[in-house]
């Protein structure tokens, strides 16, 4: 298929439909409203159902019901809306329901701003809802990656019977880039023999549930689903990394911010400073192991994020105390400039930071 120019938010919808998503339940919020807008037109044309819910909470619970009935279902929103969906996400994780949730992050806390942000890193990678659970979480850095990872997310959700998050931001949602829809690699998926589609009085009822009143039984369930999380940590880590072996300064950044970091890296190169980058594509599970590839020349690691440094803890785990970790961040919807990142790179390389 040839390339087309698409807005990130529209690409979410197109990729979901391409991946066989037939049900979208959502609620409008800036800067992700183009997703429900796109779906309201495109999904019925693809033989699916779009429904504008009365609230974000209702939307995620509709996803829960549809997923329990065996459908590929999704919802999408931006930060405050995703907060409201946390209830449904933890229930889906507990009941082991596959679904895809897209977050076009905007500034917070509270109502915050509508400009791009990455300040839902904690919420996305540490849970967000109650209880012991994890969600596979992709952080695309381009509209093409939105397409690729939204499509992959549906397969991974079905494979693990777990919610999968796409964490992008308002910038990727709003911008247009060239995209190509490639046939995704085939993944063998387990049969959906657990769905509630009616027994036809020919089998025992299937029950979708996250309630286990006996502590020991819940503990067994917790340990069972933890096996999936361990498998994800083993098999699902995705990252982009280069230049680590002989870098003076290593940068760590995900999503939109990594693009700006790369511009700053090119500028540093011109000034004779060697840099490398680790770009987590899955922010959970986090690519801790790749930090081992940082060479001896490195003077420090610079984390660049559009938040107050929520990824620093993970970077420090990866660095394991071997190098100082510095932070360059913007908040509230302010996007970092290559100049400010370059300034920090120079300071670290020159030993003044």
């Amino acid at each position, binding site marked *: 298929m040839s*390339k087309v*120019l698409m807005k990130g938010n529209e690409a979410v919808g197109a990729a979901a439909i391409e991946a066989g998503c037939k049900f979208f339940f959502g609620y409008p919020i*800036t*800067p992700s409203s183009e997703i429900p807008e796109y779906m309201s037109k495109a999904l019925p044309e693809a033989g699916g159902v779009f429904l504008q819910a009365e609230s974000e909470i209702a939307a995620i619970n509709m996803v829960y019901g549809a997923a329990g009935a065996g459908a590929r279902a999704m919802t999408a929103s931006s930060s405050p809306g995703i907060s409201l969906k946390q209830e449904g996400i933890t229930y889906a994780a507990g009941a082991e329901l596959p679904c895809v949730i897209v977050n076009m992050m905007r500034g917070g806390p509270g109502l915050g701003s*509508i*400009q791009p942000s990455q300040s839902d890193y904690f919420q996305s990678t540490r849970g967000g809802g109650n209880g012991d659970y994890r969600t596979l979480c992709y952080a695309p850095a381009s509209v093409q990656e939105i397409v690729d990872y939204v499509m992959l997310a549906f397969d991974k959700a079905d494979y693990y019977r777990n919610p999968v998050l796409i964490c992008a931001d*308002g*910038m990727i949602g*709003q*911008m*247009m*880039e*060239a995209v190509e829809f490639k046939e995704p690699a085939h993944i063998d998926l387990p049969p959906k023999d657990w769905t509630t589609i009616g027994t036809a009085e020919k089998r025992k009822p299937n029950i979708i549930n996250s309630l286990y009143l006996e502590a020991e039984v819940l503990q067994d369930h917790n340990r069972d689903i933890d096996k999936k999380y361990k498998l994800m940590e083993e098999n699902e880590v995705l990252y982009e990394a280069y230049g680590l072996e002989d870098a003076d300064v290593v940068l760590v950044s995900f999503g*939109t911010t990594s*693009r*700006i970091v*790369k*511009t700053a890296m*090119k500028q540093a190169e011109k000034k004779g400073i060697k840099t490398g980058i680790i770009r987590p594509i899955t922010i959970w599970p986090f690519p801790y192991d790749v930090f081992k590839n940082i060479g001896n020349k490195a003077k420090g690691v610079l984390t660049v994020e559009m938040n107050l440094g929520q990824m620093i803890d993970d970077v420090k785990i990866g660095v394991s105390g071997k190098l100082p970790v510095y932070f360059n961040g913007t908040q509230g919807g302010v*996007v970092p*400039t*290559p*100049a400010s990142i370059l300034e920090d790179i120079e300071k670290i390389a020159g030993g003044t930071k």
Partner: protein
Amino acid sequence: MEEKVIMAGFGGQGVMAIGKLLAYAGMIEGKHVTWMPSYGPEMRGGTANCSVVVSDEEVGSPLISKDGTAAIVMNLPSLAKFEKELVPGGKLLVNKSLINEEPTRTDLDVHYVSANELASELGNNKVANMVMLGAYLELTKIVDVESVLHAFVKVFGENKSKLVPINKKALEKGAEAVRKMQAV
């Protein structure tokens, strides 16, 4: 080669549209492109702007912040707002029909185009945006005019293909306008 251009004006002047055309034309020519609109409350206030990057390499930030190589400003508020986002020597294309002031900066490569008058000469005031785009393409040669016309049908749909000739003329008018000015 990397062009970072801001297109700005009133809502309805078609600045988002010419941005999309430029990005799409760049894509057709195999270049890396991004198109980034202003969004949110800004969008409700009646002004519109977008940033387009066309590059031989992967595009870093799609935003333009003091590093614009060009700006197309269709109205006065846009001139004040965006002249400061350009690099020294950056190209500033001013719609002279609606802007009777000069930029405050003196280190820019300024070109005045009476886009609305030229569009009216073609009998369609709506193509003032295309006049500006034509002027910009003449100055930068960033993409071929043919690619833009090809993109036109892709962006606006086959049913708008009857509008290609008038838009082509508008692009030519804009190109002619800056050629004349350069000759003087």
